[in-house]
């Protein structure tokens, strides 16, 4: 009965081949994602090297405790996703559901803290174009360059948040499918592929955290 549920596509000779192709496809996509975020980070490197003091001054107004908490939360969600895959490899569907649910909760907590941070940024007048007028901006620094830092901050964290939303949508679908017993120790390809994506989103944050919050030159 379980075997009938294993969706082996007809163009693959066996599940192992199908699994390798699916994970390889995700890896290839992630390589393009490296360059997607890398492009913005290259622009960031160019402008930070030109206006180091302004970037530092703007970065000082961000909350390190909130961002550090979020880093721990996201690393924790990477662990739960890894354990979700580990569980279903051993055929433990209940543990799979629990770990997927935990990952979703951690992801939602991350985004909650992130949007709370955005509201703090708004209160401190750190929104470029709309309201950029931070208090006690040093006279020897250029406010426009600080605004440029905040542009990079919102683009990078915003793109990252969108990636998290996509990942959470995929994980919610996995949880739904897991609740219908669609995965087993024989078939867990979607869990593995979604896990790769989620870990990548974690890696992006690992770089954003020091580059945006820990600017001490």
């Amino acid at each position, binding site marked *: 009965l379980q075997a009938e549920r294993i969706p082996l596509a007809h163009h693959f000779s066996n599940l*192992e*081949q199908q*699994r*390798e192709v699916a*994970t*390889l496809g995700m*890896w*290839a996509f*992630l*390589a393009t994602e*490296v*360059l997607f975020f*890398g*492009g913005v980070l*290259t622009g960031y*490197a*160019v402008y*930070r*090297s*030109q206006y*180091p*003091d302004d970037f530092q001054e703007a970065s000082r107004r961000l909350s*390190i405790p909130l961002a*550090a908490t979020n*880093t*721990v939360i996201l*690393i*924790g969600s*990477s*662990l739960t*996703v*890894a*354990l979700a895959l*580990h569980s279903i*490899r051993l055929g433990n569907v209940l543990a799979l559901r629990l770990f997927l649910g935990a990952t979703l909760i951690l992801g939602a907590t991350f985004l909650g803290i992130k949007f709370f941070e955005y509201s703090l940024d708004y209160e401190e007048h750190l929104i470029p174009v709309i309201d950029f007028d931070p208090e006690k901006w040093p006279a020897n620094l250029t406010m426009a360059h600080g605004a440029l830092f905040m542009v990079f901050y919102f683009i990078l964290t915003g793109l990252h948040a969108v990636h998290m939303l996509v990942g959470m949508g995929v994980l919610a679908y996995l949880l739904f499918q897991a609740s219908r017993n669609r995965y087993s120790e024989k078939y867990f390809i979607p869990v593995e592929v979604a*896990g*790769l994506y989620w*870990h*990548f989103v*974690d*890696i992006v944050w*690992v*770089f954003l*955290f*020091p*580059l945006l919050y*820990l*600017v*001490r*030159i």
Partner: protein
Amino acid sequence: MASTTTHAPTARTYLLVFAALLTLTASTVLVAYAELGPWHTAVALAIAFAKATLIVLFFMHALGGSRLVHLIVLAALLWLGIMLAFTLADFWTREADKRIRNPASLSAPRQARHFLL
């Protein structure tokens, strides 16, 4: 080929990697407050790279993955390196270029501070 499935890490490995990632996160925050002079960004990026390596090797199972996976990881790093190296080789040397073309400015104080140094 089937060896890729059997090389999956144990739950203990995952927890150890998680502990290592937390330690590195704590150290990157502490190091940000330390007196490192111009080396802050270099150290922060080195720690971030170490964390990313742990995630790729253990959480994403690149360790024990197929050669094609290794090739894709290396290709991503190579192309990212090309983008960063060629772009920054331009922007980070413009100041020096100006001095070479106009030796009179050699006595003037250096304007832009380096991103890493």
